[in-house]
């Protein structure tokens, strides 16, 4: 049932925007139906609440780690739900009127945010699972951010919004850490169970960390010193949001959390003392700054900080009276402070004024607002018979009954006196004094603007005059839920002449003096500007600047601009990770047995050593030509290695590629400085050598380990069995390339095609004119010119044969294309580009494009016949009595041939063109 109410709230607030826009000026009254309905629904729980029944509800979410949407409605949650939905209703009504001059969009956006916030708030106070509570908690922070920054065009609003987000969400992270630690310690995220097992939690090793996280989260949310500074800045929010979030509900969420964990803090050594110390400092800072503040809303904000301090103090105090006083004060404060915010909003709406000292005599123009302000202020000042009076009586009673010494009492008297002064200043001054002031009033009172304040202000009187229902259904159960046992609230009320009444009298006396001397006090304190440089806000600003500086330094260190440094870091990290993995696994690398090693054949072994020597020579070579030739040597040896180990296809491909690489790079090096002077210091070379050696060592160990593992042969066996039967090819490597994994090969020749386009765009003709002028060819040796046809034709014929026999014997499109490219390279080097192009007749790019098209198209017949792309179709023809079996696979391989040939030729022409420039 609870979850369906919450679901209603989620659905309603999510759909609110379009509805509120349609409603236009009536959005306030219309949208208030949602919170009003929820309020009535929650009221239905009153009988259960007074009977002490706790309603629970649960939906599974991630049961495996103990996270569920579990909710519970006990007295304390009930109190909050009534405040949230009740004040929510009035806030929505008020917003509709407050935004009377705004566009429909703006009004709808504001009301939607308010309703979403209400939902998040309900979720937070109903959640029994701490993770769920955290989610709703952070949702309220984010909505608070959006509401403070509602006027996004204002830099002030944006700054304040970001500040509140950083502080409250940052605190939220601390809370999350505490929640996770709690879950890890107790094995549950259930708030009920955690409260029940508070002694166990307090005795655990993690207790100080958990307490710290909870406190930081709660202090950030409830604006406790030194995290209080975001709250006065949050007054940038439109006033209805300030009334709702920043006085009545959201800022009390921290109190809610602390109260829920009160037993835990009680069992923790010094837990109560820390809470009390923070609370007292917060009270003093709030009261002091309230005396200095100029704006109506700022004065209210600082007095809210002081009030929140009082609430934390009540959490810290032991004894049942403290809990009773806390419940009374939460309700009393919500009622009178929300009213006063409404009043401040109405005054600003009507006059456009925000500074208190400019206001006066407004009672003539805003009579109902003035009455509401007066009622709320009387409650705030704690005069009988208002609710504020009763809650203050409880407060002092709690202090007398608790075991703490006299300091909290003295602070409480002082701070309460300031609150009395504030109550007088914010009501008497703007409304009833200074009647001689001329003030332009642009808007009169409208029903929407007065419903909220007058109802809340009246409630502050009604509840105290007839407390029966509240005591039985709200205060009593709430106290029972937090304190653990039932306390007779009605009987606990202080009567007659008592020390408590005396304290109230003292508070009123000092408060009256503060009110009378408000102006000189305010001026004296106001001019002490040096105070501003010592407050928490400037520490916050300094911290942000430090973070900026630090990230700048980090960015400059990491982004140093030396490519070699980046590469070194990446490779060193790779070696370190791989090496660490090997060592940390604790498993020694295996060494192949003699059988797995295989017989060492002398010839191949010597060849391998020569290849290694080639690599080392390349690394040591001073000149670039030498390095290139040494790399080529290593490549050729690799080709031989393929040759003697049953991979003739690879050997042929590698041979052709090495030849072409040498040809192309030689052409390119014609234009480059060959000296290749030393670019690394001796120290850098040493470090690089060490890194390279470490990489080699790690890889060597890995390769040895791999050599002693059982090879996986299933895939190879599959291809070996099916190659001829299904794809009619005897060369299994070629069949894999053109048929089984044809799509992969298609991807690879696409890459090669793209590379040819890239090289052509880098090195091709840079202008139309350049494209039309022939390229001068350098002189080449006569003997080379004379003998080149002897190479060209045999190579070309060989390439075509290689291509067509590739499906059944050694060869294929890749090798064929490379061989053909070699044939043209010979001509191009001996006779120049122009003659080669004449012989080729078409542009190399056309070869690439045509080849790619052919390969792509070769898969289409298979799609028509077999329904799968690139499954090749075969047909037999009889020519002169010979049966020739042909298939689309041959077309595919021809495409590969053309792409490779065209790509290599565009490289070659590009490099030769560059050399001739």
């Amino acid at each position, binding site marked *: 049932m609870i979850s369906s109410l919450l679901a209603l709230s989620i659905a309603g607030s999510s759909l609110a925007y379009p509805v509120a826009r349609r409603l236009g000026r009536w959005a306030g009254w219309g949208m208030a139906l949602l919170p009003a309905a929820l309020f009535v629904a929650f009221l239905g729980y009153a009988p259960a609440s007074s009977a002490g029944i706790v309603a629970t509800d649960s939906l599974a979410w991630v049961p495996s780690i103990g996270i569920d949407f579990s909710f519970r409605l006990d007295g304390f949650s009930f109190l909050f739900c009534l405040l949230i939905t009740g004040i929510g209703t009035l806030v929505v009504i008020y917003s509709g009127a407050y935004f009377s001059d705004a566009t429909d969009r703006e009004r709808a956006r504001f009301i939607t945010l308010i309703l979403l916030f209400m939902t998040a708030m309900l979720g937070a106070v109903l959640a029994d699972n701490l993770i769920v509570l955290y989610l709703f908690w952070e949702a309220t922070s984010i909505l608070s951010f959006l509401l403070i920054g509602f006027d996004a065009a204002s830099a002030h609003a944006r700054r304040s919004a970001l500040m509140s987000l950083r502080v409250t969400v940052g605190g939220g992270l601390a809370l999350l850490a505490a929640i996770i630690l709690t879950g890890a310690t107790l094995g549950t995220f259930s708030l009920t169970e955690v409260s029940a097992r508070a002694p166990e939690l307090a005795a655990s090793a993690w207790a100080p960390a958990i307490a710290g996280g909870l406190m930081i989260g709660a202090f950030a949310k409830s604006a406790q010193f030194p995290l209080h500074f975001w709250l006065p800045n949050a007054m940038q929010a439109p006033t209805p949001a300030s009334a709702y979030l920043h006085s009545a509900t959201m800022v009390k969420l921290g109190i809610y959390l602390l109260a829920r964990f009160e037993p835990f803090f009680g069992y923790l050594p010094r837990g109560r003392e820390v809470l009390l110390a923070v609370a007292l400092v917060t009270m003093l800072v709030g009261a002091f700054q309230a005396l200095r503040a100029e704006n109506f809303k700022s004065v209210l904000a600082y007095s809210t900080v002081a009030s929140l301090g009082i609430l934390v103090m009540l959490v810290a105090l032991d004894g049942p009276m403290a809990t009773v006083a806390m419940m009374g004060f939460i309700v009393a404060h919500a009622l009178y402070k929300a009213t006063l915010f409404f009043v401040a909003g109405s005054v600003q709406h009507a006059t456009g004024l925000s500074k208190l000292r400019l206001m006066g005599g407004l009672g003539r123009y805003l009579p109902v607002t003035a009455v509401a302000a007066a009622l709320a202020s009387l409650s705030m000042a704690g005069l009988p018979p208002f609710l504020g009076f009763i809650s203050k009586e409880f407060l002092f009673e709690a202090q007398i009954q608790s075991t703490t010494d006299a300091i909290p009492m003295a602070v409480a008297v002082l701070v309460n006196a300031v609150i009395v002064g504030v109550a007088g200043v914010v009501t008497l001054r703007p409304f009833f004094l200074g009647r001689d002031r001329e003030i332009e009033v642009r808007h009169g009172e409208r029903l929407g603007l007065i419903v909220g304040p007058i109802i809340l202000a009246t409630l502050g009187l009604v509840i105290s005059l007839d407390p029966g229902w509240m005591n039985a259904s709200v205060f009593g159960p709430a106290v029972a839920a937090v304190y653990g046992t039932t306390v007779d609230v009605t009987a606990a009320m202080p009567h007659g002449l008592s020390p408590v009444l005396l304290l109230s009298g003292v508070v009123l006396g000092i408060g009256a003096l503060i009110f009378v001397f408000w102006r000189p006090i305010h001026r004296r304190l106001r001019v002490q500007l040096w105070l501003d440089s010592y407050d928490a806000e400037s520490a916050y600003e300094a911290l942000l600047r430090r973070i900026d500086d630090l990230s700048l330094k980090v960015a*400059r260190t990491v982004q140093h601009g030396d490519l*070699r440094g980046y590469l070194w870091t990446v490779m060193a990290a790779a070696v370190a990770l791989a090496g660490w993995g090997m060592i940390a696994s604790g498993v020694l690398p295996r060494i*192949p047995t003699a059988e797995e090693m295989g017989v060492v054949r002398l010839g191949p072994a010597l060849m391998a050593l020569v290849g290694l020597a080639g690599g080392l020579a390349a690394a040591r070579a001073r000149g670039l030509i030498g*390095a290139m030739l040494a790399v080529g040597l290593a490549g050729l040896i690799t080709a031989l290695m393929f040759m003697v180990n049953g991979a003739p296809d*690879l050997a042929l491909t590698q041979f052709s590629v090495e030849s072409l*690489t040498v040809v192309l790079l030689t052409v390119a090096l014609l234009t480059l400085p060959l000296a290749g002077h030393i670019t*690394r210091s001796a120290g850098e070379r040493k470090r690089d050598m060490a*890194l390279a050696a470490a990489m080699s060592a790690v890889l060597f160990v890995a*390769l040895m380990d791999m050599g002693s593992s059982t090879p996986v042969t299933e895939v190879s066996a599959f291809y070996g069995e099916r190659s001829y039967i299904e794809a009619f090819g005897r060369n299994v490597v070629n069949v894999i390339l053109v048929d089984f994994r044809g799509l992969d090969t298609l991807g690879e020749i696409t890459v090669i095609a793209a590379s040819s386009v890239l090289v052509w765009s*880098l090195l091709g003709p840079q202008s139309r004119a350049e494209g039309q002028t022939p390229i001068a060819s350098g002189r080449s040796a006569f003997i080379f010119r004379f003998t080149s046809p002897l190479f060209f034709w045999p190579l070309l014929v060989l390439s075509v044969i290689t291509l067509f026999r590739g499906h059944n014997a050694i060869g294929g499109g890749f090798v064929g294309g490379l061989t053909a490219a070699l044939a043209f390279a010979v001509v191009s080097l001996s006779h120049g580009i122009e003659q080669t192009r004449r012989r080729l007749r078409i542009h190399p790019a056309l070869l690439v494009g045509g080849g790619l098209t052919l390969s792509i198209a070769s898969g289409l017949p298979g799609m028509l016949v077999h329904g799968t792309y690139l499954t090749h179709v075969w047909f037999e023809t009889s020519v002169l009595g010979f049966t020739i079996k042909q298939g689309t696979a041959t077309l595919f391989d021809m495409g590969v041939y053309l792409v490779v040939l065209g790509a290599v030729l565009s490289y070659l022409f590009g490099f030769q063109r560059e050399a001739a420039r």
Partner: protein
Amino acid sequence: MTVVYALLGAGLFGCGVFMLLSRNMVRMLLGLSLLTTSVNVMIFQTGRFRSQLPPIIPEGSEQLVNSADPVPQALILTAIVIGFALTVILMALALRVHGSHESVVTSEVRSAESLGDPILPEKTT
């Protein structure tokens, strides 16, 4: 032979890394070329050296018996060609850089730095 070829693969890799860490772009691309070769040698070893016969189904037979592993070969065959294309592209880039900067040393090519501080760009007001 496992030891010998492991030595070849790992050794060539180290040489490639050493060259790649140079500041001369041509040396870097030669190093990268060496690196591709060494990786191919390593992939080849995943098929072991169980036979020296090529993976070609003999006439009269329908299935492959007792030959070298065809799968690594298919992988390497395309890798060789792609590695070649990569080397060529890098060479083309080096040629372009030389054409515009008269240098192929990375620390001397500073046209990006001359655009200004990448971290704190000048405010355009």
